[in-house]
Each structure stands twice: as C-alpha cells, then as structure tokens.
C-alpha cells in the first residue's frame, strides 16, 4: 500500500472530489495582513523612538518594526501555504501527538523558565513565562502552539464522537475534553498568566462543542462552569480586578485613574480619529501614550489613523472572512472537517471580538492580539496556519444536497437538511 492509500484507509472520511479552494479566504487574510503592515510602517518609527528613550539606546531603527513584521508575515505566509498543502488527514490522524507536543512545549517552558530560570532561552516578566527565546529566529509562544493542538485534537475527537452519536455523553466525550481543556487552562492561565489566550481557547472549544451538536442543557452547565472559573481567575489576580472595575466605570473613567490609563487612551485614540482619521504617520497616541500600541492596541491606533471609515472597513474584512469560514464549515462533507473549520472560525472570532470589545470599552481588557494586524510573530504564524488548513479544506466543500443527513442528526435537531439555495458554477480543472 502506498502512503496515501494507507492514510485513506485509516481515515473514514468520505470526502468528495478535490476542487478549487476558496480564494476569498486568502484574499481577506492578505488584505488584513497588508493593512497591518501599513500601520507598522506608519507607527514603527514612533514606537522605536519610545523604546529607545525608555531604554536609553538607539537599538531600534525607524524601520525595525516594519521589517520584523514583514518577516513575520513572510513566515505566516509560509505557514499558510504549508498548512494548505500538508494533507489534512496527516494532521487530524496525528491530533493526539500534536496536542501532546503542545503540552510538552508548555512543560518545557515551565521547567526552563519558572523552575530553572534559564534566561537565555525563556522570556519571563512578573513571574509569568510565556515565551521561548530563539535568539536570531525571534521568539515562540508555546500557548499558541498548544491552542493549535487543542483545535486539531478537539475537531478529531469530537468528530469521532459525533459519528458515534456520543457528543452528549458525559463520560465518553465531555469529561475527557474537559480534562484536556482544564489542563490547557492550567498552563495558559494559571502558569503563564495569559488570560487572553485562555479565554480565546475556551471560546473556540465552546463554539466547536456547540456546532458538534451539544445539547443546550449541557451548554448551560458548561457556560456556568466557565463563568465561575472566569470569576475565580479574576478574583485571584489584582490587575484583573482593576481591569473589571475600570470597565464597570465605563466612559466615566478618567486619565487621573491609573488603572484606567490603558482603556482611556484606547478610547482617546479611537475618538480622535473621527470620521476619516488623522492619516498615516500622524498618530500621536502611538508616541508612547497608548500602551501596547503595536500589539494589543493596534485596533485603537488604526481607529486614530483611519477613523470610523477605516475601522468599519477592517471590521467588514474580518466579518467577511469569518462568514466565509462559517460557510465553508457548513459545507464540509463530515463533522470532523466541519469542526476543524469551526475551530478556526472560533479562534479568529474570539480574538477579534475580545480585542475589539476591550478597545472600545465593551469588555474588560484581556491582553489578546488582533489577528493578522497586531505585531507579533507566533500569533500570526499559527493563525495563518489555521487559516491555511481551512483554505485546504475549502477544496472539499460540497453542495448542501449532498450533505449526509445522518451527520446532522444532532446538530439539526432532526429538522433535516435542505439544499443550498445557490448552486454556483463549479470549475473543474
């Protein structure tokens, strides 16, 4: 048997013929990446200046961030291409190993960073180690890798359980997944103190469970557990309590309140943008007023630079990309593949919603990147890889009429499946 035959044998996916992928995914992703690059180009010099002043050095050149972001984008594109060509079966069938690798990376970080304090290969601040330092190759955030691993594993696992009709089985499905999720939370939120990544992980897991057909009463129970855990995590960390109280004081928070500094400046940045923005290179908030201007706060800087029109355009691009992912998911030939795409959707959506909500003052700050736009390599590479996987899977979409109704038994609440309204032209080459 050839390798591909063996893979096909092991896979019980009966997928349709491979066709042209959904280029819209690549288009929206590319546009967002380009926008991010433009902003890096515009505010990079100011950011470099702030850092040079802060550390009394001239290490950061005016194109430092632009070049780093270009390199990240290049790596991300490579990840996208690789993920879109490496056969998905290879990934799904090794989901367990990928997940274990993710956990090993986290354990290694814990070991070298928190326990051995090897500063040469780990980056820690305030007792939280989140990064491996790879010297000239930049840095790697194991949590992002773990997130990817959880996504693949959950899709694979839930796909199998859905096929078995055991999605709502407590001991077969919910508890094992709960253990994996809990373990991931232990590393990400408790050890690495990264609330944002943890929340986004839980968010896409929830969306996957939901789409796998989880019963609403289970859903409510899980939601209750998550809320309780969330409150616990907030209460054990004073800075998180500050963020929540700041959020609760709403637009009345002022500059005098140190805790409100970040969110107040995000609002000032967005507010001063007005309808059309102050223009590229004219951002004042990026000159040191707004913390994390190039990372987590990039949405606010874009609001200042491009105004209401620009932000609506950016949100529209994200919405288009997310809707596209949702539609691709809806046309996947089986639950397992659908859940992969849904996971990607959930991941992206969680980041966008959590980040934007914080910036506009609708949710407390969690410290989460805006995918494809924020400065930062690991997050970019893994989100691009995830999108690449979805892009690969978009080759296998099928028309609604061909979807197997039994696969939807749980998720459709028995209402059956009707054909797609549109039957667009399918080009076969």
């Amino acid at each position, binding site marked *: 048997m050839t390798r591909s035959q063996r893979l096909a044998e092991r896979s019980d996916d009966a997928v349709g013929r491979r*066709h042209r992928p*959904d280029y819209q995914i690549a288009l929206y992703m590319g546009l967002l990446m380009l926008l991010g690059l433009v902003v890096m180009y515009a505010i990079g010099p*100011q950011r470099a200046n*702030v850092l040079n*002043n802060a550390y009394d050095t001239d290490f950061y050149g005016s194109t430092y961030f632009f070049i780093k972001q270009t390199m990240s984008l290049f790596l991300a594109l490579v990840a996208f291409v690789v993920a879109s060509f490496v056969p998905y079966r290879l990934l799904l069938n090794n989901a367990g190993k990928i997940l274990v690798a993710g956990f090993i990376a986290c354990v290694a970080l814990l070991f070298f960073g928190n326990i051995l304090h090897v500063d040469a290969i780990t980056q820690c601040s305030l007792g939280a180690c989140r990064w491996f330092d790879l010297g000239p190759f930049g840095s790697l955030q194991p949590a992002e890798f773990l997130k990817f691993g959880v996504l693949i594993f959950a899709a694979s696992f839930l796909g199998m359980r859905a096929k078995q009709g055991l999605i709502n089985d407590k001991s077969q499905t919910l508890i094992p997944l709960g253990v994996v999720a809990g373990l991931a939370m232990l590393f990400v939120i408790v050890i690495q103190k990264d609330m944002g990544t943890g929340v986004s992980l839980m968010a896409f897991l929830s969306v996957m469970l*939901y*789409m796998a*057909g989880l019963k609403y009463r289970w859903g409510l129970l899980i939601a209750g557990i998550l809320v309780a855990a969330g409150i616990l995590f907030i209460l054990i960390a004073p800075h998180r309590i500050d963020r929540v109280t700041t959020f609760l004081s709403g*637009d009345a928070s002022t*500059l005098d309140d140190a805790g409100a500094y970040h969110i107040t400046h995000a*609002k*000032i940045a*967005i*507010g*001063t*943008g*007005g*309808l059309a923005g102050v223009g590229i*290179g*004219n951002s*004042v*908030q990026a*000159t*040191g*007023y707004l913390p994390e201007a190039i990372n987590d706060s990039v949405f606010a800087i874009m*609001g200042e630079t491009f*105004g*209401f029109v620009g*932000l*609506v355009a950016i*949100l529209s691009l*994200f*919405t288009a990309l*997310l*809707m*596209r992912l*949702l*539609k*691709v998911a*809806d046309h996947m030939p089986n639950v397992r593949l659908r859940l992969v795409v849904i996971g990607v*959707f959930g991941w992206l*959506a969680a980041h966008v*919603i959590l980040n*934007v909500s914080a910036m*506009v*003052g*609708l949710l407390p700050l969690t410290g989460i990147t805006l995918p494809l736009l924020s400065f930062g390599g690991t997050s970019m590479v893994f989100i691009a890889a995830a999108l690449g996987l979805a892009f690969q899977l978009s080759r296998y979409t099928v028309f*609604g009429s061909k979807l197997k109704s039994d696969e*939807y038994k749980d*998720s*459709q*609440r028995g*209402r059956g499946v*009707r054909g*797609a*309204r*549109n*039957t*667009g032209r*399918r080009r076969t080459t």
Partner: protein
Amino acid sequence: MELSLQKGSRSRILAGLLLLVIAIFIARLFYLQIIQHDEYVRQAEAEQIRPLIIPAKRGEIYAYDSGNLVPLVMNQTVYTLFADPVMVTDSTKALKVIREVAGGNLRPKTEDLLARKDTRYQILGTKLTRKQAELIKKESLLGIGFQEVAQRIYPEGGLAAQTLGFVNDGGTGQYGVEEALNERLVGHDGLLESVTDVSGVPLTIGDKNVNKPAKNGDNIVLTIDRNVQAYAEKALASGLKKLGAQNGSVIIMDPQNGDIMAMANVPTYNPKDFTKVKDAAVFNNNVINSPYEPGSDIKTFTIATGIDKGVIKPTSTYNNLDYIKVADRTIVNAFKGETGVITMQHALNYSLNTGMVTVAQRLGDGNRITRGARDTMYNYFHDRFRFGQLTGIELAGEQRGTIIPPTEVEGNAVRYSNMTFGQGMDLTMLQVASAFCSLVNGGTYYQPTIIAGNVSDSGEFVEAEQKRVYPNTIQPETSKTIHTMIRKARQAFYADYDTPGYDIGGKTGTSQTIRNGKYIDDETIATYLGYGGNSKPRYVIMVEASGKGQNLQGNLHALPIFTDISNWLIDYLKLQPKG
C-alpha cells in the same frame, strides 16, 4: 463555489450572533468617533499639547570706556541641582559624587534632603557651573537632575551698583536701570506650543502648533564712562574716609548734552551679593531719590535769576549788615565780618545770605519780596530750572522734591527769602546738577539721561531717542556772566587747587538739616557744585557728604573731592588748556 449557510443549522445562529456583535461594535464606534469625537479631541489635546516657554535672554548692560563699549552686567547660565528622593537608588554614591564635584554649592544637610522619600523634589545645590553639572551628569545618577537658571554677573564687581540695581530671584529688576528698564531688558519669552510625545518631546504632527520665537531683551548702553565712574567711586570713598564723613554721593554730568558720566554713592554694595545686604538703604541712589535742602549751591541760581531779570549785575552793590529783616524774621550770615557796601560777586564769594535776600527784594519793589518777586523766583526755580519736577532719568525711584509756589500760604516772603540761599525747599542732587549745567552752558537745560542707546544682537549700536531740551533757562549773556562769577567764587579762595590753564568754577554749600520740623545745629550736609573745562565747560561735578550727627562743611568736606575728580578728569578727557 458560492456557499450559503444551511437553513436551520446552528451555524446560522453563530452567524447571527457574529453579525450582531459586529453591529454593536459599529454602533459603539459611531458613538466614540462621530458623536464623542470633539470630547476625545479635547481630552487628547489637554494631554498632548504642551506649551514650551522659550525664555528670552535678559538684555546686558554696557558702559563706555574711552568710547568703546564694555559690559557692566552680563548673563551666565548656572545650574540648580535637584533630586527626586524617590527615584534615587544609590544615595551613597550620589552623595559622594555631588560632594566631590560641587561641595561648595550644596545646601546644608544634603543627606537629610536626599533621605526625604516622602517628597519628589529637593533642591540640593544652587549656582553650579556648566562644568560641574556636566561632571555630575556623566555619572548618570538616577533621580538627580538639573535646572538651568540664568544669573546676572558683574565683570566690574560693584561698579555703579546703585545705578545698575540688581535682578531678584524671580527675574525682576530691582532698583536702578534694572528696575526702570525692566520691560525692555526682559524682552518677550517665546512660546512653542506643540503636540508632544509622552515624554514631552515636541512632534511635527498636527496643525495646532504655535511657534513664537523669543525676543531677547535690549542690550542697554549707559552714558556712564567706566573709568570716570571708577575714579569717582574711588575719590568719593577715599575722600570721605580722609575727611571722616560717613555718607556721600557724587554725580558727574556732561553740561553740553545732559549725559551722566558717573554717579556714585557711599556706602555701596556688590549687586552679585544683593541677598547678603543687611541695610536696604545701600540700594538707594541718593543722587536721585533723597531730596534735601540744597543750601548755598542755590545762591548761583539766585544771582543768575537777578542778572537775567536785569535787577543786578556782578558789580551791583548793597550794604551788608550781616543781617537782614524779612517780615518778622531776621536772617543772618553764616560768615560774618564782610560788612559795608559790597558787590554781589563779593556776596557770592563769601556766600552771604543777606546778598541773596537783597536780590530777591530787588526782584520785588526793592525793599520787600513781593508777590511779583516770588512769582519770578518760582518761574525761574520751578519752571526754568525744573526744581521740584521729575527729571525723567531712566532710573527707578526718582523723587520729585518740594518747592512751594507763591500761590500757597506757605509760599510767603520768609520762605522765598530762605529759598534764595537754598533753604525751605527739597531738591535732589540730580535736579540741582542738571539745572547747574544750564547756568554754565549758555542757558540750555538738557534733560539728564543715563541711557546712550542699545546694542542689537548683531552688535549694532542704536542711539537712544533724543532727550528733551529746554532752551533759554537764562539768556546766553546771563550764562556767560554767572559762569564767570562762579569761577571767581572758586578762585577767590581755592585757585591754586586746580590744574592751571583751565576754566574751573564752583560753589560750596553747607545745609542745615531738619529733624522733627526744626533746623538742628549738630548736623550739616556738605556739598560742592562746580564745573570744569576749557573754552566751554566739559563737566559738571556735584559732591555731597553727610553723616548722622556730623557737622560737615562744603569747603572742607565736599570741595576736596570735587578738586580731586576735577583734576583727574582734565587728564582723562585730555582737555586742551584754554588758549
């Protein structure tokens, strides 16, 4: 492939949720960016736009030195050393460094100041030089900083201290030129209002930037000659010391244009150390701001008035009884024995009060100082000689003095008889010296001035505006006559004091002082008022000496100082002897 969501699928619910959230975001953005836009712009500007004052340089003050400009007051940047005790991490090292470099500039108990962790700002030392500041900066001490402070420096030390005044710690001129011309000296601070980054560095972003450059203060050039001033101060100080007088003042003027060549006072101080002065009286320039009864110097003005009105000539005679009755008072001479029929020149030489009262009587009906006589005297003294009027000198604190007009009850014959020999009115030395210039220069009153002009930043000299000139205080013929009379008055007794070949004249004055409204006998002020020159008078010198409880005589205590300065000036000004 065109895809749409499966009807009734959970993905439709997800899509709905997503679109709802995005719609909420857009509504929120609309609120923040469109509705609340102005409010956030206001908040941003309140934080980002910082005015940066560009301090204007205070003008320097120059004097002449044989026609060249020399600085009397300049600026120097010094540094105030301060600490933020909270930020200071290594206070042992910080203390060691600043003690080594600037030990003498530190405030007492520096270590205690540095230990006050409850404060964020402590001044540790003042007036550090640039070099000291740089040495300390090189150590990169955390929490230690510097503030630039502009400070006045005085290359000539205490020279012309009362004329210059000083600049207080708030940057405001006090006394002298510094106070009188404060606004010109200060200039206008520039304003740079710009959007700044978080550490206050101005950015080129935005259209609300204001850039108003600073306009430095004028560099003032005084009419003072450094050498004349220095000699006057030396002559006054040593003269007073030799003669045992406590206080004294000198003014030297150019009678041909009203320029003040020197003004000196004893006791004096050094403006650099103005904070160490215990008695603020030394700040006062007594030449302009302490009116006194000028005494016999005024006799020259009385004679000039009589001659100008044609009621006397130098050779006119009167019968001197050493006393003369005016209304119910009897006025006596200080110097007695020259009784009999004598000339007016004789009366002036011996400074006889009776002669002066006679002149006043002759301005009236010959026997009485009538209202007409008093009006004439007031016209000359107040309107022409400008006694009792501010001269407008460009110095702070000039006093007007007092001269009582005949329209008032107090302006009666007795007062006017006293005024003929310099009593019953208060004048400043500047008023007397300025009017005296017009007596000897042909009858032109030049408004006295101490400002020659200013020097622009590029070094160009701009002459000061022409001061006011009041012609014909007396007729030229009268001036010639009184000029000669004053020379004779000096030569009658003191001719051999002077460098021969020059035209020098002067009049002594010994004024009684008034305490509690009564003339007292144990304290008199000595003055000498005279001129010197060749074909025309080149300088007018007035000297005053006084002291608490001291009986000082014009001829004994003021005249020698005049003579000293006069003889020196002839050399210094390289005057050619009269042909």
